């Protein structure tokens, strides 16, 4: 018999508790019912798929309980149930990490549809990203390439004010990660980060996704990502794909903070910070009339251009460490290293798919590697064969293979240890003096290329 996923229901009112329990059961979940925060804390230790929380509890503030549960179970889909006059508290819950909120009277069909979708998106055990041993904001990573350093500094500068930011660069160069970094470093980092890909939705669906829609005959009202990201950051990927109408709506919101849901004449206000990404040449698009010039001017100050990975190949070890750690934490695997020889192969490859391709390459390598160190044989064929491509190799690395391996290992260790030579020496199993000699030999200084 397949065990049903558990949903924790925290509700002090008996009638509502029984209704939720009934519909939870009828939707195929196992309800775990609590009337108090104290009991909820105890029940939250069980394996849960989601939580439904009423804010008005007799023995605790619902927002505090939400924070406690999410501190224990980061990523757990949590849904707030409230009455209309508690909407302010519900917004506070959203900022604290709740997935969504519903007002009473709740519609069981809508509620459990959204819960089901959230559980489907997050079927596994939530990963506590705080346990990552690497920085997650991106602002404190020590990039080696000039392009990486420049982009990082521009992002840090941009994070200090609330002006919109335009990120440009070929696909897969890390625009969304950069947007998240700007959010994490900014004053609105306590708000939500929301991302919308303008290329993946039809205009009407995109409009509803961005700005929401009012209740119509076919369903309930829906908040847009703009509302979720109030006091946070909204990232619009492929902004060049916005229709002329949506470009106008976006421009209006950037200039006045006002926007309208679909099917509504009422203006709402949002204070979200907007970051846009594009792989297209927006200047050209504006010149030929496909993109509003005034919107472009509004977005591109400041603009940050992200270079293809091959032009910042010295940052590759840092990206490898970032991606590898995420994969290992996600898959609950023990520590896995990239051997010097494998790193050399990765450094030689020209990476037409940029960071996305690197990520997939490491995913593949992790699948094929059963030992504690990724070897060249574990890499996909395209990455292994690149060593035979002298053109790619010569632009990246010197001629001596032993030196290449040593340099790659050194770069990796310094990246992981954020430039700390003593820690890098311990990681490589060599003396501190040897590290200094290696840095000198490879023309590195403080972990950065001269």
């Amino acid at each position: 018999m397949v065990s049903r996923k558990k949903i924790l229901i925290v509700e002090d009112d008996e009638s509502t508790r029984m209704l939720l329990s009934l519909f939870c059961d009828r939707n195929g979940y196992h309800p775990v019912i609590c009337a108090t925060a104290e009991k909820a804390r105890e029940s939250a230790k069980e394996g849960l798929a989601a939580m439904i929380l009423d804010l008005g509890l007799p023995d605790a503030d619902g927002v505090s309980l939400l924070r406690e549960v999410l501190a224990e179970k980061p990523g757990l889909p949590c849904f707030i149930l409230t009455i209309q006059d508690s909407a302010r508290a519900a917004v506070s819950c959203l900022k604290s990490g709740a997935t969504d909120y519903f007002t009473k009277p709740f519609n069981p069909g809508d509620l459990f549809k959204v819960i089901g979708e959230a559980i489907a998106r997050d079927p596994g055990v939530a990963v506590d990203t705080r346990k990552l041993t690497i920085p997650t904001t991106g602002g404190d990573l020590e990039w080696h390439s000039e392009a990486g350093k420049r982009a990082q500094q521009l992002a840090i500068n941009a994070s200090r004010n609330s002006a919109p930011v335009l990120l440009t660069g070929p696909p897969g160069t890390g625009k969304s990660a950069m947007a998240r970094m700007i959010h994490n470093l900014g004053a609105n980092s306590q708000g939500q980060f929301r991302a919308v890909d303008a290329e993946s939705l039809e205009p009407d669906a995109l409009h509803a996704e961005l700005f929401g829609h009012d209740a119509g005959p076919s369903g309930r009202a829906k908040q847009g990502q703009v509302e979720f990201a109030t006091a946070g950051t909204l990232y619009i990927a492929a902004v060049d794909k916005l229709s002329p109408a949506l470009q106008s709506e976006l421009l209006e919101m950037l200039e006045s903070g006002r926007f309208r849901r679909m099917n509504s004449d009422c203006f709402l206000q949002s204070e979200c910070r907007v970051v846009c990404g594009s792989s297209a040449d927006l200047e050209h698009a504006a010149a030929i009339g496909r993109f509003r010039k005034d919107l472009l001017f509004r977005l591109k100050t400041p603009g940050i251009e992200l270079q293809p990975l091959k032009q910042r190949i010295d940052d590759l070890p840092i990206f490898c460490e970032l991606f590898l750690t995420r994969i290992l934490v996600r898959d609950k695997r023990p520590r896995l290293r990239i051997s010097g020889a494998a790193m050399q192969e990765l450094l030689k490859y020209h990476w037409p798919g940029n960071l996305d391709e690197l990520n997939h390459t490491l995913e593949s390598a992790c699948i094929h590697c059963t030992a504690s160190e990724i070897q060249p044989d574990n890499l996909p064929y395209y990455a292994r064969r690149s060593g035979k491509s002298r053109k790619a190799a010569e632009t990246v690395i010197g001629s001596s293979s032993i030196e290449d391996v040593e340099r790659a290992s050194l770069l990796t260790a310094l990246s992981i240890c954020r430039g700390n030579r003593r820690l890098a020496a311990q990681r490589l199993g060599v003396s501190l003096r040897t590290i200094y000699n290696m840095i000198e030999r490879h023309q590195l200084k403080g972990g950065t290329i001269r």
Partner: protein
Amino acid sequence: MNEDTENHLDLERLKSLGELSDGNVYPIVDRFANSLLQRIHDLRDVVERHDSAGTKSLVHQLKGSALNCGFIMLAGLLSRPRENDQLDTDSLVRCASESIEIWKLFLSREIVEYPEVSHNLSDT
């Protein structure tokens, strides 16, 4: 069922919940209806003690269950007072009594569709 009935109860919601649950929602709503006068009585006690926090908490709770159980007129009355002192519990009792009466009538008609859940209804 007339216009006054619809002012008291959200019949559309109740029917929809009934269909979604094969009638299993009705014993829950009935249990709420049966507890209503006692809950308002408890609320009156708290109001008379000038227990502002207690009043707010009970009003909040009662309003939430009234909304979920389709007792919309009662929920509306509970939404009105901004100051606890203004809470008119006599009006609440009158409204609740009428709503309960209408609910019982509605239930007697609807439960015919779901005989298998009728044994879950309380006797009161």
